[in-house]
């Protein structure tokens, strides 16, 4: 047991899965010699060699497409998109093949692959380096969409993703990458895809979030408890699709109030589906309008203004007060 950043935790998962399974193979831009621009794949080339840790040409479509092919052959490729903002060049490979091969062949061909990509803002990066567009993947039937929130669950979810028989898009928060350390057991650990978790017991209001937004949500929850005596349930989705609505709809049935927090643009964003599930399963218990605290319907601005784009504690606290006082 030792304290790790999310980068180290993901690196640990990759090391152990490659160690345990010779069919796990990594490909992407700068993942080998360079160890990845965030060093997530550091050391893998030395341990497992060029054939299994592949520095590819600069071409997203064939990185994802080749990974699909490797998976069709029975390998377990883990492809990296250097930033989620550049994954769109490969979008058709995910939508048209990764997500459909199983159905197209009636289960004859399957695509057990993972596409890892750093997402989200908060690291003062250039244009296209700070987006949060999980909806593109979550709305695509045949894909699974996972967004861990801390080093430990990043590690255990990546292990599950690599072992999953179906394609998983795996978003990693750049803001969390090096933000803090957490105890991550050296021994193998996995966490099921498609399962959310309750991070905080409250009872007065339900907060639903995931990924980088978990931290401000928890801070807001603490602040609310200290300053207002308001106790919040905080649900960390972890998997965006298939969405586990059991915990947050149950929580909302108890609290009657829910606030959804995400970094993605507001309109047609993830909150919509979460609200839909709340209406379908908790409507009669809702005592006030559901609130959402989100990114805006504008491209992420350059970094001087990105903190104003990304939901922060103040905005979350304000939304909670609004629903409680509605």
């Amino acid at each position, binding site marked *: 047991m030792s304290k790790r950043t999310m980068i180290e935790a993901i690196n640990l998962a990759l090391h152990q899965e490659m160690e345990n399974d010779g069919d796990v193979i990594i490909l992407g831009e700068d993942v080998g010699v360079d160890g990845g621009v965030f060093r997530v794949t550091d050391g893998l080339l030395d341990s497992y060699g060029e054939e299994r840790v592949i520095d*590819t040409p600069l071409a997203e479509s064939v990185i994802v*497409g*080749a990974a699909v*092919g*490797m998976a*069709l052959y029975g*390998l377990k490729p883990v492809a990296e998109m250097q930033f989620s903002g550049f994954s769109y060049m490969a979008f*058709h490979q995910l939508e*048209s093949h990764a997500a459909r091969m199983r159905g197209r062949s009636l289960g004859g061909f399957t695509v057990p692959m993972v596409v890892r990509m750093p997402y989200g803002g908060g690291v003062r990066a250039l244009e296209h380096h700070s987006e949060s567009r999980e909806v593109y993947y979550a709305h695509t039937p045949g894909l699974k969409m996972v967004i861990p929130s801390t080093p430990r669950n990043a590690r255990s979810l990546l292990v599950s993703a690599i072992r999953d028989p179906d394609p998983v898009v795996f978003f990693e928060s750049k803001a969390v990458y090096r933000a803090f350390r957490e105890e991550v057991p050296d021994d193998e650990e996995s966490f099921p895809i498609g399962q959310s978790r309750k991070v905080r017991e409250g009872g007065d209001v339900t907060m639903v979030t995931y990924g980088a937004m978990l931290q401000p949500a928890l801070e807001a929850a603490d602040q609310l408890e200290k300053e207002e005596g308001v106790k919040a349930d905080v649900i960390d989705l972890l998997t965006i699709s*298939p969405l586990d609505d059991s915990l947050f709809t149950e929580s909302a049935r108890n609290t009657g109030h829910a606030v959804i927090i995400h970094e993605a643009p507001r309109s047609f964003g993830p909150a919509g589906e979460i609200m839909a599930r709340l209406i379908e399963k908790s409507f009669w218990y809702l005592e006030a309008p559901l609130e959402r605290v989100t990114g805006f319907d504008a491209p992420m601005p350059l970094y001087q203004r990105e903190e104003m784009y990304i939901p922060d504690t103040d905005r979350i606290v304000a939304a909670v007060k609004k629903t409680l006082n509605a």
Partner: protein
Amino acid sequence: MARETIDIAPSLEYLSILDEDGEVDSDLEPDIDDDLLKDMYRCMLLSRRFDERMLSLHGEGRMGTFAPIKGQEASQVGAAAVLQEKDWLFPSFREMAAEIWRGKKLENILLVYTGYNEGGEIPPEKHILPVCIPVGSHLPYAAGMMYAAKFKKSEEVGMVFFGDGATSEGDFHEAMNFAAVFQVPLVFVCQNNQWAISVPRSRQSRSKTLAQKALAYGMPGIQVDGNDMLAVYSAAGEAVERARSGDGPTMIECVTYRMSVHTTADDPRKYRSEDEEEQWSEKDPLDRFRNYLQKKELLSDEKISSLEEEVEKQIQDAVDSWEKRQEEAAGPAAMFDHVFAQLPSYTKEQRDSFKEEGSSHE
């Protein structure tokens, strides 16, 4: 300092062996076993007749849109014939002849084009990938799959088919480059049938040949007469040999012609003349190969007509079981059968809604 021409070998060649007048270049004539020659002809014939049958079924309103292969039998069968059983075929959407050569079931082809996902099932040992409709998008997974085959030291070779139009897609470029960089055992067979729906080859690219595109990746390229079974077979044989011995990919441009409609939704009169079609019908690969076999006395008139009966029967049997399987087909809930290995709970509920809603849906 200077101004000098750069030599960018590998060089580019054109190959023709059996020309449209039936003349054979005996120096180049490949030595093919008689039975194999006959099998190749039989497959060409079967594919041609099956194509015709599908067109008439479509005419009767019994089948949806599909892409006929008429005229491209030599490019497909000639190339696929050099593959071993363990090798892999990556079709696009107009490779029925190649798929039939590899043993794809006719009834499944019929099922797919009549809107039954069930037709997508492929016997695993056949090593045929599903049909790929987004143009050029199968080249990346073909490259990746054969990377994996090489990684596993399987000595398997892949052959991926695509059209002249596909060479304009970014995926063609990325996959060719990837395959060359990693020396993947994959043969790229471009069926240049002169048209991408209504867009002629000349509009698709300003390059003199499509084969020369291989040079951009340091990959050998060759252009062959795609209606010449012998030329296609020889070029494909060399390419597969090269791939199997670890020397990486090759691109083969088969110069051929789509003698029929693009798909059953298409009207060629909008964009090309009957004259053009007639000129190409003189180059019909089926006639040309039949004459060749007759000259070699491998094919008597009797044999020819008995073969016709044989394939007719085979096609009729397929049509019969296709009809049977339509009657037996499962209900709409089957649309959920292969979304994931395990269906999420709420998707299960969606599937079960069909049952509740009762007969009209089951």
